[in-house]
């Protein structure tokens, strides 16, 4: 599976939400695109990631 252009091994299929939590992302501070389409936060639990998926994650830090 590709995450932010890097190839990583997906041990077993999991939901977007589980994947993000395992990678220590703060779900309130991110935007996620799966296979070229932005994913609404509400769908993070329902969508399962597969080995041929491409994910891009943008994480925001405070300040401005």
């Amino acid at each position, binding site marked *: 599976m590709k995450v932010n252009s890097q190839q990583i091994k997906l041990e077993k299929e999991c939901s977007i939400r589980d994947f993000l939590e395992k990678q220590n992302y703060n779900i309130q501070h991110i*935007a996620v*695109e799966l296979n070229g389409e*932005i994913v609404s936060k509400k769908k993070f639990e329902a969508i399962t990631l597969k080995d041929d998926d491409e994910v*891009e994650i*943008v994480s*925001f*830090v*405070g300040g*401005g």
Partner: protein
Amino acid sequence: MILVINGKPIEVAQGSSLKDIQKEFFRTSDVVIINGFQTNENIVLQDQDVLTFIEKGKMPNKEEFESFMSARHTPEVYEKVKKAKVAVAGLGGLGSNIAIMLARTGLGELLLVDFDQVEPSNLNRQCYTVKHLGLDKTEALKMQIEEINPFITVKIKTVKVSYDNLTELFSGYEVVCEAFDNPKSKAMLVNGLLQELDCKVVASSGMAGYFSSNSIRTEKKFNRLYVCGDGEHEAKQGSGLMAPRVSICAGHQANMVLRLLLDIESV
């Protein structure tokens, strides 16, 4: 051949030079600008060259003023930019500076959105001055822009942006700048704009302290999102927001907006 001189098209003889025109029409001028570039050289002119002659210290009339203001813009750039509509969400360290830069660039219409008022600690990096203390940031910034470039349209909304109102607020704007402070708000706005509208989004992340200027960059993410900043240095205790680095990030955002208005999608 036809030249555009101080905003007006004028017929002149082929082979005329800058000094010829200056001597004939603008003897008392001391600033000469050709196609967006100020020069002292005696250049031979070509058809459709855009010239501006300014006499320092002389207040221009209304007609001349707009052509002087836009004299330094590269002509084709100005024509595109003056039709553009851009929104700035958040008028703090980033947003206030982005808005001023875009106003100087001659944008057609700017929408400024913020719910907050100007207070003294803002003055370390935001573009406001002492006379704006206590005013709504939207009002204060609109006043400043009117004194910098009176020829652009400035619309203001003194509201807090939420997922529920962002579609109505930002509909019709081709580029929206995310210039919030709180990372949860940043994520909310970026997600909302990308899901509900079709504008381009120029967002920000990481510009605190006095870390290296060189680590502030612009990156393209997804297909309509640009993120400016170092992606890392959040504002926190011991690492506040300071004018130089915040301005660098604001410059990145304003320049990316300009590039997008000129149909350049690469960073």
